[in-house]
């Protein structure tokens, strides 16, 4: 597996040395500019539509510049769509999932990468494979399992695990542990053993080796994986769709499906709603772009 990571092992400075950078490449630039514009058009079109009042687009047509440009659609969509609530739900689901996933995956990765025992590769394979399954394969049994876990109404108003954030957090965590374990175990494998050896000499137990030595060293991988996982969980559509029945508990990514029906006759509002949903990921992207890309390339295995 180190192969996947190998390319990153080479100093980037070297890779660019003595490359011919003199000859201007007009053809390449032209191609890239055309592609970049093509790539931006759908987003810009959504933004353009969102900025115009429906009355003006009805009057002048969507493909026109007539009329006003303002943020009214965003406010209307925010209020009518109830985005504050949906964003809250997204946070309630995303934060615990990412923390749990990283914590559990780091324990597993630590155990399989720093110690040799009989089944560690088997387990690692199991974890990695689980992550690659299409979620639809598990949908029916998970749904039925959650439905048949009886809970008192004081804990869950459905009387079972359906329609709870817990269900979504649990399944998202289970699905993401595999990937994170895989990436973290590769990372931990490459950490020098001298440091833990020294600690063992000092009498440090397994937990201290994990918590005080390995975890701090793994911080860069956590930053990368954490960013990646936040985006993935935020973007998850399927599990809330399956497991949550109350419209007001859906995270924003799944709720946009409802909003699509609600705003269908008003494309300006729909566009504004879409842009609102993009904003958190865009902010994370701008602030943490490096971590995100690092996370993706760290575990280029992600399906």
């Amino acid at each position, binding site marked *: 597996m180190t192969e996947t990571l190998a390319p990153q092992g080479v100093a980037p400075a070297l890779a660019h040395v003595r490359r011919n950078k003199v000859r201007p490449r007009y053809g390449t630039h032209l191609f890239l500019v055309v592609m970049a514009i093509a790539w931006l058009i759908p987003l810009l079109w959504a933004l353009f539509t969102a900025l115009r009042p429906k009355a003006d687009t009805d009057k002048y047509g969507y493909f026109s510049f007539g009329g006003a440009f303002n943020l009214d659609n965003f406010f209307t969509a925010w209020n009518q769509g109830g985005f504050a609530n949906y964003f809250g739900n997204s946070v309630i689901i995303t934060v615990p999932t990412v923390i749990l996933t990283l914590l559990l995956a780091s324990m597993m990765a630590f155990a399989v990468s720093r110690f040799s025992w009989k089944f560690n590769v088997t387990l690692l394979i199991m974890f990695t494979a689980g992550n690659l399954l299409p979620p639809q394969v598990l949908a029916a049994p998970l749904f039925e399992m959650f439905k048949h876990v009886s809970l008192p109404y004081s*804990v869950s108003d459905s*009387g079972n695990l359906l*329609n709870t954030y817990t269900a979504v957090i649990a399944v998202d965590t289970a699905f993401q542990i595999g990937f994170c374990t895989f990436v973290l175990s590769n990372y931990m494998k490459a950490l020098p053993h001298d440091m833990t050896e020294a600690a063992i000499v000092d009498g440090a137990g397994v937990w201290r080796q994990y918590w005080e030595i390995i975890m701090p060293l793994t911080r860069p991988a956590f930053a990368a994986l954490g960013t990646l996982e936040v985006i993935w969980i935020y973007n998850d559509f399927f599990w809330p769709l399956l497991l949550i029945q109350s419209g007001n508990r859906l995270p924003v990514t799944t709720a946009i499906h409802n909003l699509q029906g609600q705003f269908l006759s008003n494309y300006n509002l729909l566009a504004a709603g879409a842009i609102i949903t993009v904003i958190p990921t865009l902010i994370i992207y701008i602030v943490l772009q490096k971590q995100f890309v690092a996370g993706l390339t760290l575990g280029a295995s992600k399906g």
Partner: protein
Amino acid sequence: MSNENLSAFSHATGGTMTRRALVSGAVGLGTLAALAACTGTATGGATASKTLTFGSGSSDDVPKRAYAAVVDAFNKKSGDKVTTNTVAHNDFQNNINTYLQGSPDDVFTWFAGYRMRFYAAKDLVAPIDDVWKKIGGQFGAGLAGASTGDDGKKYFVPNYNYPWGFFYRKSVWQAKGYNVPTKFDDLVALAKQMKTDGLTPIAFADKDGWPAMGTFDYINMRTNGYKFHMDLTAHKESWDQKKVKDVFDNWKQLLPYQSPDALGLTWQEGAQALGAGKAGMYLLGSFVTQQFTDPAVLADIDFFPFPEIAVEGTDSVEAPIDGLMLTKKGGDNQAARDFLAFMGTAAGQEAYFSVDKSNLMTVKNADTSAYSDFNKKLAGVISNAKHISQFFDRDALPAMANNVMIPALQGFLKDGTVDTANLEAQAKALYAAQ
């Protein structure tokens, strides 16, 4: 959408505050609340409550506001607090199995027909015979029958119903000199004329899959009769027979006159085409009029029943009934029962009608003075009907309607062919799986 209706209470607790907790909280506040509730009709096992939750699939603007009006009127009358959770129409229906097994709300919007009886038989909803004792006198036999489960108990309170038929703009027809067709051949001839006049003769929108079922039902009932419709949807009749093929053969005569891109259009877009005068007529339920926000357009809309084909004239009308049901969990909540009973009174239905005038009230003593001539015409069609069908997806097994009929009808709209032998094979497998 839904969260506007969310109480600040449940919002503050992240939505995890449960109804039971709310209830006990309310009772815990003092004996007053409990006392007040106890003065209500004591039904076996019903707990005292002054709050209830209401799951609504009526997510379009007009019906959503109409139910809000009902909730307000109920609140004024009883003091009980209703928390409404609105979910997008299609999602609400798609999630109903899960929803009822989890039943997060006490009362929910639903339909009469197979889809009501099925959940009653599976014991996922609560019987409401006590409610019917209070409201039963206000409903005719047809409505009472439609509210009854296979076990003879009542499970459903009708709110409104609405006939399906052809809607058109009077001004357009007057300008072109069109006449209402009474025979199928007249309809085809009229459509042909409209096409030469540059109109889309019959607006058709089937992106969501279900609207085409209305056309199927009508051609089927006009070709083979009401009983055949009921037996076919119950799978007592085979799909692989000439009678079914006849339905599609008749439909084929209309295909060239329907919106050619129907598979990409939602029914709302179909309504827009009619409202804009681009389409000559539109076969849909009377809820289509909700889309005409311009009063001038609305006043210009008229209706005619699906023309006669072979049997029973125009005796059968497709007029689905929408109303409220009680979830298994809501069965313990007296306030929820009171809310259902309120829906079965003139006051409740008038509150709804005051906002949503596209539907017809179902209680006998409702004040119909607010009915427009158009409403009266629709009401007349229903009261004169000898048979009332619900709708294909309400009369048939949901798996048959959703997973077999929708693709089959969409395929038929695509290329004019349908494999009835395959329909029968699928029906056999799916009805056996229940």
